[in-house]
């Protein structure tokens, strides 16, 4: 026969399990209501402590990483200096063309990233799960950041703001399994939906007709179609493989993210909210 202690434990376990399942059922509406408030409080309590721990441990981690990868860091530094030189040269020569493009896109009422205001934010890297590719940045509602705003940096689209508080925001990366971006292949009129899989995995593209002219190395940009989640013209990724499987109704396309998501110290949050 079960003792009183055992019965009480079983009751507690069953009750907590049921509460968890109810919470999961309601998690779809997590951005509003009681669940949203609970999340905000829990996150607000942890964030300052995490920042302190991060500030203490990051230099130690950097020291080890720098010592282990000294050769790679040194050569990367050289490559970056060369890239900066090339970009400076390009910047001066393309200023005129950018201005022309801005005027043309304004005429077509298509939002162009260059004409949109951005807020620069530092990443604080709270990513406590292996099952969600997110990061936290140090700008929030007080800086004009809102849910849905695109985040760019490191050479392309980084992701989208999914939660924001006074001085911090959570960004879902393009590699997250729940990320879906409307894209267009280079200068063509081939459209598709770019999906994330998991951190470190290539992006995949859906809804591209079989045997479309897609080539490896081609860049995919946000398409900015009416009702799109992102303004047009942001590089999402480059094609690393493209083929049409036998009897398939669409192509199998993998992309490498355009943004270097592993080395993001700063990002730009685009002050642009998608039309709902």
């Amino acid at each position, binding site marked *: 026969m079960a003792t009183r202690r055992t019965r009480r*434990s079983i009751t507690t376990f069953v009750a907590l399990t049921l509460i*968890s*399942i109810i919470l999961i059922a309601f998690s779809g509406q997590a951005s509003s209501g009681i669940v949203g408030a609970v999340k905000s409080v*829990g996150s607000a309590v942890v964030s300052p402590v995490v920042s302190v721990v991060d500030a203490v441990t990051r230099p130690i981690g950097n020291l080890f990483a720098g010592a282990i990868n000294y050769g790679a860091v040194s050569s990367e530094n050289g490559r970056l200096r060369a890239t900066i030189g090339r970009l400076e040269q390009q910047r001066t020569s393309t200023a005129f063309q950018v201005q022309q493009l801005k005027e043309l896109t304004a005429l077509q009422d298509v939002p162009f990233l260059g004409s949109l205001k951005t807020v620069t934010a530092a990443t604080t890297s709270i990513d406590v799960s292996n099952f969600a590719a997110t990061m936290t940045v140090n700008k929030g509602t007080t800086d004009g950041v809102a849910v849905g705003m695109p985040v760019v940096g490191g050479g392309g689209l980084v992701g989208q703001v999914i939660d924001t508080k006074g001085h911090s925001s959570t960004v879902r990366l393009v590699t997250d399994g729940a990320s879906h971006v409307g894209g267009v292949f280079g200068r063509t009129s081939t459209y598709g939906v770019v999906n994330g899989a998991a*951190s470190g995995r290539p992006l995949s593209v859906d809804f591209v007709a079989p045997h479309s002219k897609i080539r490896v190395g081609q860049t995919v940009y946000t398409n900015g179609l009416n009702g799109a989640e992102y303004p047009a013209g942001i590089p999402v990724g480059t094609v690393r493989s493209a083929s049409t499987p036998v009897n398939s109704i669409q192509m199998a396309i993998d992309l490498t993210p355009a943004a270097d998501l592993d080395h993001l110290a700063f990002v730009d949050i685009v002050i642009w909210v998608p039309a709902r």
Partner: protein
Amino acid sequence: MSGRVGLRMALVMLVTISLQAGLLDSITISHVHPEIIWLVPAAAGLVAGPGVGAVSGFAAGLWIDCLLPTPFGLSALVGTIIGYLAGLLEQRGVVVGSGQVFWVGPGLGAAAGLMGVLLYGVLGWLMGSDGFASIDYLVLTLLEVVVAASLMMPMLWSVRWALGAEGGERRPRRRRAAW
């Protein structure tokens, strides 16, 4: 659990979550990192039984859920299960500490950590959340086993301190002989 015990457990959870977010998240191999939050309910269960284990797992999981975009309540569910199962071991007389062979504590820690990440992945996948099926589970398993085994004993000491003498589910005391 009294208020003081609850506060001390909250402190242990806060330190664990901070270490996770501030330090362990940056230790990535093949884009996965170890998760140590599952050690809290495992240690609480082993120290104080299934009831306290389940409550601790629920609280720690709920706190972690506040920081994640994954379904709210999923970590709480996993934490509850781990805490309860660890508590069942305690009920059956498994005592980690003096008198045991050295690997029992680390072994149970590795098992709890492994169970946490796998259960979380499977439940998330069953719920249809994208991305749960795309993780490198082999690397995650190896990483989790090593880190969880290494940190289980410090976690047990911390939880023992937090729960103190009164934190556990009271068991009938054996009367000592008076001589």
